[in-house]
């Protein structure tokens, strides 16, 4: 086999023959991973939709007894958790993972195992949540934690793909709009999901393990939950709506028959959304301290980029030669419903009205208009547009149009009726209401609207499924597609085509979650350990990395733009966000409530700083060895770093071992969570060093190619900073 044939076989389209049967579970190609995210998301969407219908059925008439109080509470908790954590975010992440690499001129995402791991966390998290409901317990906190992990993993993989997986010459400024409308929400996921994950873990510690954090009785702060989680709804709306706008901007040109107008403005609007939405989010977190007008104004600022996008959709249709059809109708539905939701959100953000709407059905109406208009309509249009590409068959036009009108009418009737109920003072999250308050008629209207909405959804999704089975076969390029195809990425990367490890790692993380839910420390610890080991195994170097023969592009391995290098920084940002939230929680608790934690972790960490410093120094010396082309001391330095980490962990473990399983008060709980986080960070850094040691033994590291070592050095340095930052935090205790 000559070099050219070898290279052609290595650069042949991936996933030409998708794996069948059990092997599907091990598939890593971005289309498999994206489909796994999105298909499971739509499965959970159906369950959540049925729950929403049950709630509407219960509230149709006053004093109905279809659901009892406990069942209604379970239904609305599950409906919200499933819709936001297991449908909206993963459906959009999945669509983006499915679509984006070819649009960027890449054959796959650069970190396929990470994306696959995230998709499995999404699937398993949703299954854990539903299984827990069937056996009568509430696993929403831990399951949401799994969904947060899935979101972070998918976001890191996608962001690394956008930043490092583009074809040569495809500068950031010339990227397709979809990539722009993903970068901002991906960044929001990286800074917003880790605090959510933290809140979920803290809630489980309190509920399942009896260590108070939020309960006033244990010296906790009930407002802490409100601060960590409630403002997240703001960021969540942006995280969900922006990628959906990106999808819309991708398929709309095929139906308006002209490119989106003012693409640069649209890209700038997407980019501006990051600081604006993050600012509004922070203002909500600090709402009690910040002036009300500032909070309102920062929330209003988010409306400008959104309005620019909506106007551009209308202008694109107006300036094009629109081809009437289901997707164009869904674009129009996006404009109408999202605009209604946006106006409602702006009015209810005015402080006096926000105070009055607090806890009423008006908020439910606003939220649903924004999310259904902003995300569901663009997603349904996207399904119609890409259905031929996904299933090879053309969806029917009639079911799409009929379903659209039902959806539009049902959505407006349901959620405008909820606005009316909010004005009439009906609280949300009530399982029943008395007669004679004027609430019966709007409730009846809302329930009728929900039935119409559900019928419309059934018509649209049923039509798509029928088309997938019996629809006319699609020609190779049925739409006036605007996507980029083929091309070479900036870097040549030898990607694995299938691996069982992402699934196994996700199963181990699920075991950790189940152990935590069952209140069994051995199972949880075993799950955590197994997850770390399997993550290490999944990236263990089995063969020497070599470029394909005859390939002149730089290989990703060892290149300074290697995706792993980018992923490191993205992961550090996410971890730093978690640490900042943890530190803020600790400071808040310290400022407001009785505080009586023991000082064990603080002392242990102070002692452990010495071996930590040793480890970091050893890593930098190892890097210097490699840079200078020497190998002599490399193994020694790496071993020394591992020893230093082990010593630091031992000291930390000794400090923690004296403490009971359940913490007596909120201060101790948070202190131990800080210590655990620091310990976990050391374990991860040690794992990376072990990998580097393996590579060093294979002779993979050279002065030009030593990114794994650089990653390890930076990770160790970050951990050292984390410990230094954590120490004063623990010292403010008395």
């Amino acid at each position: 086999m000559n070099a050219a044939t070898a290279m052609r076989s290595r650069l042949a389209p991936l996933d030409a023959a998708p794996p069948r049967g059990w092997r599907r579970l091990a598939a890593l190609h971005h289309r498999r991973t994206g489909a796994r995210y999105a298909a499971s998301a739509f499965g959970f969407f159906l369950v959540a939709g049925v729950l929403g219908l049950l709630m509407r059925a219960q509230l149709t008439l006053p004093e109905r007894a279809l659901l009892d109080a406990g069942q209604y509470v379970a239904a609305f908790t599950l409906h919200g958790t499933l819709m936001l954590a297991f449908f909206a975010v993963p459906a959009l992440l999945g669509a983006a993972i499915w679509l984006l690499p070819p649009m960027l001129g890449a054959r796959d995402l650069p970190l396929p195992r990470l994306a696959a791991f995230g998709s499995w966390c999404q699937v398993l998290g949703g299954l854990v949540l539903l299984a827990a409901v069937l056996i009568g317990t509430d696993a929403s906190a831990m399951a949401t934690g799994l969904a947060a992990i899935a979101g972070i993993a998918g976001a890191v993989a996608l962001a690394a793909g956008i930043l490092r997986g583009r074809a040569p010459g495809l500068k950031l400024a010339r990227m397709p709009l979809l990539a722009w409308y993903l970068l901002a929400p991906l960044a929001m996921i990286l800074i917003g999901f880790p605090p959510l994950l933290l809140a979920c873990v803290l809630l489980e510690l309190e509920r399942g393990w009896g260590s108070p954090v939020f309960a006033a009785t244990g010296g906790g702060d009930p407002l802490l939950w409100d601060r960590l989680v409630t403002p997240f709804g703001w960021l969540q709306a942006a995280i969900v709506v922006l990628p959906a706008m990106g999808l819309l901007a991708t398929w709309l040109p095929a139906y308006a028959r002209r490119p989106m107008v003012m693409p640069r403005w649209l890209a700038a609007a997407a980019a501006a959304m990051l600081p604006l939405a993050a600012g509004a989010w922070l203002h909500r977190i600090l709402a009690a301290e910040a002036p009300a007008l500032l909070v309102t104004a920062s929330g209003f600022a988010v409306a400008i980029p959104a309005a620019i996008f909506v106007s551009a959709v209308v202008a694109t249709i107006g300036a094009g030669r629109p081809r009437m059809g289901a997707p164009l109708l869904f674009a129009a539905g996006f404009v109408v419903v999202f605009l209604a939701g946006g106006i409602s959100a702006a009015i209810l953000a005015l402080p006096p009205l926000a105070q009055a709407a607090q806890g009423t059905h008006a908020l439910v109406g606003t939220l649903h208009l924004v999310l259904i208009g902003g995300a569901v309509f663009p997603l349904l249009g996207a399904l119609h547009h890409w259905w031929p590409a996904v299933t090879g068959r053309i969806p029917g036009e009639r079911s799409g149009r009929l379903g659209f009108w039902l959806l539009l009418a049902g959505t407006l009737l349901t959620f405008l009726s909820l606005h009316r109920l909010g004005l009439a003072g009906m609280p949300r999250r009530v399982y029943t209401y008395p007669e004679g308050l004027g609430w019966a008629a709007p409730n009846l209207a809302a329930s009728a609207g929900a039935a119409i909405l559900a019928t419309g959804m059934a018509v649209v999704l049923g039509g798509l499924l029928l088309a997938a089975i019996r629809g006319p076969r699609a020609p190779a390029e049925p739409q006036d597609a605007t996507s980029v195809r083929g091309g070479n990425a900036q870097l040549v990367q030898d990607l694995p085509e299938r691996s069982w490890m992402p699934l196994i790692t996700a199963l181990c993380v699920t075991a950790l979650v189940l152990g935590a839910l069952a209140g069994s420390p051995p199972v949880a610890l075993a799950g955590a350990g197994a997850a770390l080991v399997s993550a290490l195994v999944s990236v263990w170097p089995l063969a020497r990395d070599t470029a394909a023969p005859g390939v002149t592009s730089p290989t990703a391995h060892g290149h300074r733009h290697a995706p792993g290098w980018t992923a490191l920084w993205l992961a550090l940002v996410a971890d730093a966000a978690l640490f900042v939230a943890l530190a803020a929680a600790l400071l808040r608790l310290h400022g407001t409530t009785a505080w009586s934690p023991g000082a064990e972790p603080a002392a242990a960490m102070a002692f452990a700083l010495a071996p930590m410093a040793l480890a970091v120094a050893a890593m930098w010396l190892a890097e210097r060895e490699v840079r200078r082309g020497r190998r002599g001391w490399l193994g020694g330095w790496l071993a020394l770093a591992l020893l230093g980490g082990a010593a630091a962990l031992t000291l930390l473990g000794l400090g923690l071992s004296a403490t009971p399983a359940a913490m007596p008060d909120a201060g101790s709980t948070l202190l131990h969570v800080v210590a655990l986080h620091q310990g976990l960070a050391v374990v991860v850094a040690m794992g990376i060093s072990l990998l580097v040691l393996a590579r060093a033994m294979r002779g993979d590291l050279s002065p030009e190619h030593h990114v794994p070592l650089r990653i390890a050095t930076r990770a160790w340095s970050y951990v050292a900073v984390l410990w230094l930052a954590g120490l004063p935090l623990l010292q403010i205790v008395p």
Partner: protein
Amino acid sequence: MLAAGSSAALALEAAGPDAREKLELLRTALWIALPVALLATAALAHALLFPQHRLGPRAARWMVVGGGLALPGIALTAMLLVLPRGPLPAAAEAGPTIEIVARQFWWEIRYAGPAPGAPAVVTANELHIPAGVPVRLRLTSRDVIHGFAIPALGGAADLVPGRTEELVLRADAPGAFRAACYAFCGVQHAHMALPVLAMPRDEWQTWLRAQAAAAAAPQAGPALQGRDIFIASGCGSCHAVRGHGADGEAGPDLTHFASRETIGAGMLPNTRAALTGWIAATQQIKPGAKMPSFHLLTGPELHALATYLEGLR
């Protein structure tokens, strides 16, 4: 007058200055938003229905600038400008201060004693305020986060354990309103209403003096028997009946129970049938309430107990 559910409590029918101001703001904001919605819908309808009238590139650009920057910029700024500034002008006449403690799933109400130095008057699940004067409500929670709002009067607050919120509200005229919990507080969040009764000031004074008195002594046989059942069943460990040796604090104060219109935090009318049913089957009527069902009491015992409670006027 105050039977469960008879008091339509619409925020749309503002009955006090605070609620009126909010309603006014809502109307103004809707008028500001209306042209935005109309223009956007008209542009969309034009684009879809008259595809032959194509926008030129310049017109399309103006549409994005106008619809994306100018229109929302002007509308949102206008909304910020019409926001009311500062607190309501202080009323010359100061009304009473009333403390409200939210519990799972009922309300404890404490009034200052009618005479200076008199002990506070503790009642539950019914708020009486004098009409026409500003009333200062000091609110807190004893267990979890609750919310409090009287939509018809406008005030609203989140109640966090360990913190006290203040609301100053005024009812224009005597009337019945409905307050309720507006933050999900647990399984019976739906049944945490608080009937609010605004009454003329002198009537309110009379009412308060009556509430400050100790409970009426049971007169006839069944009532006396009922009191014995009340004590023997341990009701007094959770409920207080001032003057009858019962001083529990976990549940609503029952000293003047019979003067209230509803039971179970606005859930049922205060009638004999509802009362006996409530005592015998609390957990069936309001599952998750802190009171157990006293289903071991016989029918005659329940009626004796009810006779006793009905005497607590």
